[in-house]
């Protein structure tokens, strides 16, 4: 479904991604690990076309992803969450989630302004769907609240709900359990597993929390200084000397 080949991204003197290549099969759950600054978020930003690649190719469902404009990514079925939350603070939780369904609606300025019956029907359909996703993630209680001021763990779930309501085929999660306590991490792992099956979604998840990644992913890709240093099943990657060195190197 996704094939990344020789992907390179530079910022001035820094090479954030250096010839990275890997592929993701339909239905897989792939973990992307690596120390801080390894280039994981940069990779996500390339896949959602926020950053331009300086070299390499990305093919998604057979097409050239790097030729797609940023606003058209969602319609291709790629959704993401952000490392430091990318919510809309002055909108309600429900409206935040509804923005995630933006690409599934059609109403333009004139038709929306006139409130034509078709627009209303579309709105009802999307609202019902947003409410279902909110319910599914235990957010029904806070649906009417502004996003600003809710607990961090709740906001992480709002982001996930917002990504899911777009009916993505490929879900990119950037450090989804960062900042959660261990009980919440456990719970999130369960939710994510269930959701992958319910929504039939392929997942790439960036995470530092080893227990979480190792427990949930079928395959791990490890980056260090923009290079792929290991790839394979969790148990194998965990024993990889290069991976151990990379993590020990940063914690020392």
């Amino acid at each position, binding site marked *: 479904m996704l094939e990344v080949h020789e992907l390179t991204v530079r910022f001035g003197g820094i090479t954030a991604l250096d010839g990275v290549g890997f592929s993701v099969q339909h239905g897989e759950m792939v973990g992307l690990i690596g120390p801080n600054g390894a280039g994981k978020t940069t990779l996500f930003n390339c896949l959602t076309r926020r950053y331009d690649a300086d070299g390499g190719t990305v093919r998604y469902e057979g097409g050239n992803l790097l030729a797609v404009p940023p606003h058209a990514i969602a319609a291709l079925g790629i959704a993401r969450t952000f490392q430091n939350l990318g*919510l809309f603070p002055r*909108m309600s939780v429900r409206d935040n989630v509804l923005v995630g369904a933006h690409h599934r609606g059609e109403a333009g300025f004139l038709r929306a302004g006139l409130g034509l019956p078709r627009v209303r029907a579309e709105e009802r359909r999307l609202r019902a769907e947003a409410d279902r996703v909110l319910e599914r993630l235990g957010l029904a209680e806070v649906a009417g609240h502004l996003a600003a001021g809710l607990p961090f763990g709740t906001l992480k779930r709002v982001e996930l709900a917002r990504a899911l309501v777009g009916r993505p085929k490929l879900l990119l999660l950037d450090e989804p359990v960062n900042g959660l306590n261990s009980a919440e991490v456990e719970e999130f792992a369960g939710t994510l597993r269930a959701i992958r099956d319910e929504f039939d979604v392929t997942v790439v998840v960036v995470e530092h929390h080893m227990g979480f990644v190792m427990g949930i992913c079928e395959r791990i890709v490890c980056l260090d200084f923009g290079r792929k240093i290991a790839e394979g099943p969790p148990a194998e990657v965990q024993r990889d000397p290069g991976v151990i060195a990379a993590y020990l190197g940063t914690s020392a």
Partner: protein
Amino acid sequence: MSGSTEVTSKAASAETPGRGRAPGRAATVRWRWIVAALLLAAACYAPFQLVPFHVFQLSMVLVYAVALLGLNLLVGHAGQISLGHGAFFAVGAYTAAILLQRVELPYPLTLPVAAAVAFVLGLALGLPAMRLRGLYLALVTLAIAIFLVPLLKRFEPLTGGSMGLTLAKPAPPAWTGLAEDQWLYFLALAVAVAAFLLAHSLLRSRVGRALHAIRDNEAAAEVMGVRLSFYKTLAFAWSAMFAGAAGCVYTWVIGFVSPDSFVVTLSITLLAGLVVGGLGSFSGPILGGLFVMFVPGIAQDVNDAAPGVIFGLLIIAVMYVAPTGLAGLAGRVTRSIQKILRKE
């Protein structure tokens, strides 16, 4: 006033069961429509109680409210800025005046044409302007307002140059039995109500959410599939269209246009009125319309020599007392009243 107290307590009691959870949204929405209906009833009653001059003043409040409704779309909801909104107001006013005088078009037809001309101009100027941000955008929109007046003076055969154009005001049809000022007032009211409904339905839709998303977090909005340049440019064009419609009604109500009515100060007063009224709020444009209509005059009365200073001080005073604008203040007062009623 006893009628409205009863409504308040009803809305408050409807909210009580849901207090621990999300505050009863349905009750809030219903409460809002009740207030809007009461206001509309009062607005229909007012012209029969007031002297013509005050009716005229209220008509102007409605005219400004329509312009601010458009500005609110752009500034309050889409998070962009415009210091040149007066220009689109002027374009609407002149379009109507020229059509009435040179083409002798029946006046109801001038409204869609004025709105369309302002929309197209807004689209043309918004296309390049909306690539800019913050101060650059402020500067470019300000430039639009600055260039406009000299431009109007140049096309003398069409615009009447610095003398402007004087026109006959729309006459009330005999069957209404209304005086001229009352008829003009109801025309303004009809346009204002239509504009409010249009903006309200727009903002509650996918489009309104896209604008809010752009205001709150552009990068995230784009990942969700919101095409930034498209929505920003159309928000600019739509806000210009509202201003153009307001300008058209201005011409109907005043029966006179001249370049001196649309100097740069108008653009700045409009923006100030919107901020004072309450950015991004439902009632902000009405409160802002009152502000634009009356505060410059009050400033003039307080100190004839330096009305600008008084005007500025008044803005500072309001923002000090009500940082989220008068609408925010009204909201706070309503909520505390509801709280008191709930305790009883």
